[in-house]
């Protein structure tokens, strides 16, 4: 371990003395200080906070990601190029230790720079908006989804009932069952005029008294156009006489927030929210099952959320570093840099790849997919699954949006990004580097 630390130390010292770190710090500070000057928010304090956080920290992570990719690719490849590695591998050092040392050096540098940048961003945010009351915008709220409506069992019952009565429509049973499921789901999450639906939320740990509580909802209207729909939002235990009520004329497709008095929360941490469609004209409100109705509850301080966000970002940089060091231990710097950039690009078009995998007829000329279509499909599916574990979530979205970055999420990122994905890349890198001959004639 001391050898790994020694190698990491040298990498850090090199980075500092070659002024790479100074240049990076300069770039980061420019991004942190200059960006807010050019940013246009939507004219609200909350919007400014969001945009400022997302853009400055976004720029910081982007700069650090690019720097990490480059430095990671260069870490071993330049030493091979300049043959400093000859001195290292003729010392009693396993190549795995060399790999780890380079990666660790990169990680420590990233951690330091990220901490500095995070602190600078926070200080700047506070200073920039010192006249505003930021407490209501700098929050970290847990987003709670409603307890899912039971679909599966009911669907089976309906299916069995239809079967018993001999009313099953023709077709394969699993398709009929799926149709029933879809119908039930649609019923459960849509509200025709004059009706109400109940959404029950189970808050993981009862929030402290006085902590703000809010319902966030979004729906589509069965009518085209954006005419608002009259609805009534009722919160609190169903048997309470003084349930919270708020009538609203609400625009579809918009995201709306309604603050709920914390007293409406039941002692067991349950919150019941009823939404009634009181629109005079027949129009149905359609909610998405996962983000149609959500409850937001303040859980920790913004500062804590910022730390967690930076930790997630560090985990992602750790993975990028591992990827880059591995690629750099196999190829020369230019090749490695291009390869790494390509790999990162593949990981970032995961969503697009996913849609491609559903596409059966890529050339789209005939009705029946040809051999090339089949081949391409295989390639897309392969690429999708290959890059799936490496696809990165953006921790800045919840941070800026005031949503909680749960420890469990930080943990899962650490597990999947660093330990599993990073570990796999590390093992691959060590194995390849170990096989690699050094000092081949040029």
């Amino acid at each position, binding site marked *: 371990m001391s050898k790994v630390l020694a190698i990491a130390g040298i990498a850090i010292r090199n980075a500092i*003395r070659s002024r790479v770190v100074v240049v990076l710090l300069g770039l980061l500070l420019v991004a942190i200080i200059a960006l807010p000057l050019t940013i246009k928010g939507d004219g609200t304090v909350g919007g400014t906070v969001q945009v400022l956080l997302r853009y400055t920290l976004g720029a910081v992570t982007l700069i650090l990601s690019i720097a990490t990719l480059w430095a990671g690719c260069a870490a071993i490849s330049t030493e091979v190029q300049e043959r400093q590695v*000859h*001195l290292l591998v*003729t*010392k009693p050092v396993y190549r795995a230790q060399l790999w780890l040392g380079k990666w660790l050096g990169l990680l420590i540098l990233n951690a330091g720079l990220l901490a500095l940048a995070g602190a600078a961003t926070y200080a700047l945010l506070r200073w920039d908006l010192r006249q505003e009351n930021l407490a209501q915008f700098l929050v970290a709220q847990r987003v709670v989804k409603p307890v899912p409506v039971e679909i599966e069992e009911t669907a089976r019952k309906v299916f069995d009932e239809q079967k018993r009565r001999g009313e099953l429509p023709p077709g394969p049973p699993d398709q009929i069952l799926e149709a029933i499921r879809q119908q039930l789901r649609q019923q459960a999450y849509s509200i025709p005029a004059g009706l109400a639906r109940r959404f029950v939320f189970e808050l993981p740990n009862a929030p402290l008294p006085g902590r703000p509580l809010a319902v966030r909802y979004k729906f589509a209207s069965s009518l085209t156009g954006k005419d608002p729909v009259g609805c009534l939002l009722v919160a609190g235990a169903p048997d309470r006489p003084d349930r919270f009520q708020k009538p609203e004329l609400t625009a579809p497709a918009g995201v709306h927030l309604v603050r709920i008095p914390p007293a409406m929360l039941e002692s067991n941490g349950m919150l019941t929210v009823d939404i009634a469609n009181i629109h005079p004209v027949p129009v149905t409100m359609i909610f998405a099952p996962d983000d149609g109705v959500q409850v937001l509850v303040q859980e920790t301080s913004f500062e804590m959320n910022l730390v967690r966000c930076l930790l997630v970002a560090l985990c992602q940089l750790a993975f990028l570093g591992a990827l880059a060091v591995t690629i750099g231990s196999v190829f020369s710097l230019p090749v490695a840099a291009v390869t790494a950039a390509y790999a990162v690009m593949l990981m970032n078009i995961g969503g697009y790849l996913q849609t491609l995998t559903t596409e059966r007829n890529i050339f789209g000329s005939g009705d029946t997919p040809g051999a090339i279509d089949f081949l391409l499909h295989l390639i897309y599916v392969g690429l999708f699954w290959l890059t799936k574990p490496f696809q990165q979530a953006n921790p800045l979205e919840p941070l800026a949006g005031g949503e909680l970055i749960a420890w469990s999420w930080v943990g899962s990122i650490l597990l999947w990004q660093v330990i599993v994905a990073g570990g796999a890349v590390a093992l691959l890198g060590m194995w390849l580097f170990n096989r690699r001959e*050094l000092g081949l004639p040029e």
Partner: protein
Amino acid sequence: MSEPIIEVVGLQKVFRDFWRRPKVKAVNDVSFTVKRGEVFGLLGPNGSGKSTTLKMILGLLYPTSGQVRVLGRSPRDVKTKARIGYLPEESYSYPYLTSQETLTFYGMLFDLPAGERRVRTEQLLDMIGLRHARRRQVGEFSKGMARRIGLAQALINDPDLVILDEPTSGLDPIGCRQVKDLIRALAARGKTVLLSSHLLSDVEDVCDRVIILYNGKVQALGTINELLEQKTQYRLTMPEVSAAGMERILAAVRAELGNEPTVDHPRRDLEQFFLEVVEKARQSTTEASGVGPASGVAKYLAGDEALQHLVAQPAAPVPLTAEQKQAADEKLRKLVEPSK
């Protein structure tokens, strides 16, 4: 001269191109053994396979076939590497580290305890005469100074086997002499030295045995004497004699050989002469140069008292042992006494 330190048997290395097609057979069926305490020279022109062989012994390149065993193990074994010191052909140090940091870093790779690391670093800096430049970054060094750092790092672990690639390249004559003295001193302490060089005179000065490679194949292998001694010729060296005395000697030789022998004044070794001039100049001035006065061999390397004495005055000619003297006398007697 007991256990083998390096065993090379039937070594072959084929370089392949991008498509894994064999391109060059750089080393072809090379075998040799280096024993403990030997100073072994690897000679050959550029592209002879000398450097490839060295890299395979270091575990940088992997043999296509054949076997290399170093200190009884594979050269890629970490335990082997702990006992090797390697000076590469050029300086491969980190330019942003100071000389002291460089030595400390390599010391850490050998897991040397902090105290020992400090002592050795100090002694090595004294040995290579860079004590005054300990806080300067290696990147600013001249080539000679960088080589000295390279040499120091190769010795930080007090290695049993020292592998030196072109050890004197880039050094001034004083540095060359010091390195050669150091090599001898190491050998005297039972260390094994493997070196490759173009400078044949250096090789001749320090090596016990040499191997000459050409086109990847062994062309010659043996002790310097075996290889260089011209057994069919004699050279007679003697103090100044009177003209009459000289005439008598020549007459005797003429009578013996039937024709005229070649007679000239022996010339002094240029290296020897240079060192004397510099030594004289140094005594008359105190101005500092790039490299400070070196102080022989690091204490931890020198080990015992006898060796200390041996290397105390590295610039002076090495005094001959009684045994060597006797051998020289023997030769001389044979020469002077005409065969009867």
